[in-house]
């Protein structure tokens, strides 16, 4: 060990030590010659004799240096310096290789970091592998014949797998809770849609929105999370009549309270009701959904929106359940015990034989990674992106390989020279390896930077401006390491193959060569062949990415050209919730009506209205039927304010818009869309007909009997990709259902954003407790709804350009190298009278060959793989001929350009110069 440090310190003072050695040996020579002079030799003779005795001075110095023990290090430094010098002389190629590697490595690390965060990481709680989640699966053909009469949460699945969901009625939760032998804890939380998740939190008079998670009393104990300060929620807190308490997230405690200590015990107003913050959750805790980060955790029973009968209704599905397995109990055991229990129970909730026909089946799934909503939403696009960046890395590696191959061929003479002056093969191979590893390392280092930027870019892109989606992606060093290792391996493999080949050359023949690669043409043929194969591979992979980009870009343009049925420009949207400011009942409708009038009086605002949901992203169903008819579950509704259709510029085809006459107390009216008219009335005139909103059990009680006063043009409802359903629009202020949070729409002159301050001022004057939220333009609202498609289209375009650029560089390099190799031949051809044009075509012919092979390989692959992304496409088939044609056209144009540059150079060769070089 000491020896090592001594050698290390010598290494630091290397220069002085070299001088010492020279002086020491010089002293030895002098001493020896003096001794010989004493023996009677002449001065000159003695000096010569001393030198003879010493032998080869350089060798002695060299073997002494070997004793210092850093020959390897010194040689490495030498190799490194030489490698850097070589990189400098081949600046363009080295830069391109390094940049393409950096982009390949960085993009892979960034995308994979997201996948890791969303799909693989476990919840930051104690023993996450013991958590399980309750789900059910059912083959539902008709919603009317299903035990779930109402549901507040997501379900997913398709015709083959049936419907799956994590929502349960509260009595089922009680049933699971009885299994003490299986679970140490069973806990639940209330799924809420994005809008309802936010509360008006007022801390010392400062009101702002906070997101909330309603949890059962055992939630924190079940997850095994310790408090950062104070205490968390106990079972006793989750009871009717218990004092109002809340637990703050760590981030909220920092943001709104100024620290965990200050938050604990603080009295706050939540939606205008007093509440005590009893504690703070730990910093890394984000609940059970990797896609969200609630600010507040509140006992479920404190949620005013949950009607008391919801706790007992066996047909109302609204609660999500997780449980912690006792040690020694497996998920399969829990499944085996619970499934029959649930089966027996759910049978008792069925009202008729049709419902008994397809009852839901309990499925206990693993819960270590938390809720799967985000996983389901993002995993497929992430896999697509991962494939694309994987291809890019492959193209980049092929490029590096090609570069090294070409360079090795060009350096055959250099290698031969080195070997002939006595370098060992090992030494030469080591030097070549240093060069390739250096290239890969610089690429990897830059890749870290690309990954960091890429993660920030992706976070913005994938969140699509949604503020309630929080992605917890961090740079994943394992992935980065893997990508860097892959590129280094490429460097080593392709650095090594030509290095070994180069050092096996017939020295004499190689040295005699006038130009590298001429006489030894046959031997380097495999090198050239491999180079061509790599270029073909690059072309093929680029085409795949180009096709993907073409498909995604066309999908986006199809989506953007979907007829909306209204004018999306110059509309400002924002949300107001009078309930959160403590208003109730009829007070709310009057308040909204007053606000609407004030907004419409802002100078420059042409008209103002309000609706229960934004038009393009609505999704609300009620029991709806015609007198004497039966309920049609496909119908959709929307409650709107006066002049709604005028504001959104939806053409009214017959009858009239809803206006200020249709207020509280006036006869209830409704406006229907074309599709509703066609489906329910056919050729009959719908005006004057009635439509009924039902409520209660199976919607049998007539809650509102409305007369149809207008028919409007169909507008997009519930997303651009959705088929437009039959829709009934009714005034928000004519009884059941009562309005809560509403979206206001302002049709403005010019840029809608310019009116935000005026709106804020009006809201502040009306009620300072009222939070204004989700302010955006209608255009932005629509763009956000297709954020995934926008992200895919943009990213795949970037990737396609990147792939194209890298592949063209590879092609350019190969052609340029071949041209340089054949300069002599070209000179002879020109001297014999070949035309320049023909020479250009001769070179381009080679490019076209490579292209043709690449495309021939790739087109079937593209057709096959594009089926996998069918679900991302809109308004087109996976084997879209236009996308394919554009991709092939782009590729051919880019490749011909990459080939034309060196071809033109070949045609400009001066025959005299070329021949003189021979």
């Amino acid at each position, binding site marked *: 060990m*000491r*020896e090592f440090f*001594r*050698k290390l310190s*010598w290494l630091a003072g290397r220069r002085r030590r070299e001088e*010492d*050695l020279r*002086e*020491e*040996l010089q*002293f*030895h020579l*002098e*001493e*020896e010659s003096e*001794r010989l002079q004493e023996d009677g030799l002449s001065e000159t003779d003695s000096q010569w004799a001393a030198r003879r*005795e*010493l*032998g*080869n001075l350089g*060798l*002695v110095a060299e*073997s*002494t240096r*070997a*004793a*210092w*023990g850093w020959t390897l290090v010194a040689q490495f430094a030498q190799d490194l310096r030489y490698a850097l010098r070589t990189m400098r002389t081949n600046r363009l190629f080295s830069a391109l290789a390094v940049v393409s590697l950096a982009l390949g490595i960085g993009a892979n690390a960034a995308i994979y970091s997201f996948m890791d965060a969303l799909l693989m990481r476990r919840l930051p709680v104690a023993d996450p592998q013991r958590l399980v989640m309750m789900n059910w699966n059912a083959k539902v053909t008709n919603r009317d014949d299903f035990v779930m009469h109402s549901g507040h949460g997501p379900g997913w699945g398709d015709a083959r797998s049936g419907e799956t969901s994590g929502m349960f009625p509260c009595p089922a939760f009680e049933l699971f809770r009885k299994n003490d032998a299986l679970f140490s804890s069973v806990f639940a939380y209330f799924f809420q849609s994005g809008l309802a998740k936010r509360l008006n939190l007022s801390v010392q008079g400062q009101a702002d929105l906070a997101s909330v998670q309603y949890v059962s009393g055992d939630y924190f104990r079940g997850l095994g999370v310790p408090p950062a300060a104070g205490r968390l929620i106990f079972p006793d807190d989750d009871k009717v009549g218990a004092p109002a308490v809340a637990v703050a997230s760590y981030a909220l405690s920092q943001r709104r309270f100024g620290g965990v200590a200050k938050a604990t015990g603080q009295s706050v107003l939540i939606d205008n009701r007093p509440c005590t913050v009893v504690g703070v959750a730990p910093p890394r805790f984000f609940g059970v959904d990797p896609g969200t980060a609630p600010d507040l955790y509140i006992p479920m029973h404190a949620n005013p929106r949950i009607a008391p009968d919801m706790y007992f209704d066996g047909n109302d599905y609204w609660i999500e359940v997780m449980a912690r397995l006792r040690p020694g109990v497996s998920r399969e055991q829990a499944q085996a015990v619970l499934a029959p229990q649930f089966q027996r129970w759910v049978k008792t909730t069925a009202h008729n034989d049709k419902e008994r026909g397809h009852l839901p089946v309990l499925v206990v799934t693993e819960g270590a990674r938390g809720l799967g909503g985000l996983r389901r939403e993002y995993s497929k696009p992430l896999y697509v992106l991962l494939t694309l960046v994987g291809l890019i890395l492959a193209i980049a590696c092929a490029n590096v390989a090609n570069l090294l191959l070409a360079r090795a061929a060009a350096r055959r003479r250099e290698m031969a020279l080195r070997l002939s002056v006595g370098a060992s093969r090992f030494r030469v191979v080591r030097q070549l390896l240093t060069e390739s590893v250096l290239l890969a390392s610089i690429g990897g280092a830059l890749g870290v930077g690309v990954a960091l930027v890429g993660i920030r870019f992706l976070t913005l892109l994938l969140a699509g401006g949604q503020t309630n989606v929080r992605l917890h992606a961090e740079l994943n060093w394992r992935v980065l390491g893997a990508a860097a290792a892959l590129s280094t391996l490429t460097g080593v493999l392709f650095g090594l193959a030509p290095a070994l080949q180069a050092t096996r050359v017939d020295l004499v023949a190689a040295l005699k060569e006038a130009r590298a690669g001429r006489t030894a043409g046959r031997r380097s043929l495999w090198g050239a062949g491999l180079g061509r194969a790599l270029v073909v591979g690059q072309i093929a992979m680029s085409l795949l990415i180009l096709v993907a980009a073409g498909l995604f870009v066309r999908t986006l343009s199809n989506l953007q050209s979907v007829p909306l049925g209204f004018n999306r420009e110059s509309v400002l949207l924002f949300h107001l919730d009078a309930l959160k400011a403590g208003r109730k009942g009829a007070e709310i409708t009057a308040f909204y009506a007053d606000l609407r009038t004030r907004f419409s009086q802002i100078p420059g605002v042409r008209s103002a209205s309000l609706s229960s949901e934004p038009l393009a992203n609505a999704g609300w169903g009620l029991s709806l039927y015609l007198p004497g008819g039966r309920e049609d579950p496909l119908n959709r509704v929307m409650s709107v304010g006066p002049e709604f259709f005028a504001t959104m510029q939806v053409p009214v085809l017959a009858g009239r818009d809803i206006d200020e006459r249709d207020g509280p107390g006036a006869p209830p009216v409704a406006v229907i869309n074309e599709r509703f008219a066609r489906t329910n009335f056919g050729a009959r005139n719908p005006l004057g007909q009635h439509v009924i909103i039902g409520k209660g059990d199976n919607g049998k009680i007539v809650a509102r009997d409305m007369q149809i006063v207008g028919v409007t043009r169909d507008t997009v409802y519930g997303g651009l990709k959705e088929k437009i359903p039959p829709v009934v629009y009714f005034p928000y202020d004519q009884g059941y259902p009562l309005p809560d949070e509403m979206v206001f729409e302002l049709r403005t002159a010019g840029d809608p954003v310019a009116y935000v301050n005026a709106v804020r001022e009006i809201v502040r004057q009306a009620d300072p407790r009222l939070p204004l939220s989700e302010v955006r333009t209608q255009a932005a609202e629509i763009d956000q709804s297709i954020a995934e498609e926008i992200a895919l289209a943009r990213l795949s375009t970037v990737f396609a350009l990147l792939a194209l650029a890298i592949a063209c560089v590879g092609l350019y390099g190969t052609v340029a190298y071949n041209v340089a190799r054949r300069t002599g031949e070209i000179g002879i051809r020109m001297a014999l009278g070949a035309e320049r044009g023909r020479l250009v075509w001769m070179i381009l012919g080679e490019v076209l060959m490579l292209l043709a092979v690449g495309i021939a390989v790739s087109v079937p692959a593209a057709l096959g793989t594009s089926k996998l992304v069918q679900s991302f496409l809109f308004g087109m088939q996976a084997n879209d001929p236009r996308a394919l044609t554009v991709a092939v056209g782009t590729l051919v144009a880019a490749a011909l350009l990459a080939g034309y540059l060196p071809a033109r150079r070949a045609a400009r060769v001066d025959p005299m110069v070329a021949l003189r070089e021979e």
Partner: protein
Amino acid sequence: MDPKTSRVELLQGTLDLLILRTLAAGPAHGHAIARHIQRTSEELLRVETGSLYPALHRLEAKGWVAASWELSEKGKRARYYQLTRLGRKQLAAEHSRWDAFARAMGLILNPVEGEAK
């Protein structure tokens, strides 16, 4: 006398021991060490310069000798080597190993003489 017959080739690994033993008498520079070994062995052993200096630097790396620049008897700057504490221990160990080795060799090569004694 003919140098070819009168000179003995150094056995592998013995040079280190010779250097250490020489330095036990006091600090010396490379040339002096070589001369001392040659003279003391009655010119039978000759140290090649080509192996002397690598050996000295190797011993220095191992920490058995330490080097410093001093003025020689003739007033010239010379690199003097000196035994360290570690080197002294090493010398003792190598010395006894060599004694054992030499005795064993002697017993085998001269059995009669051994028995006669």
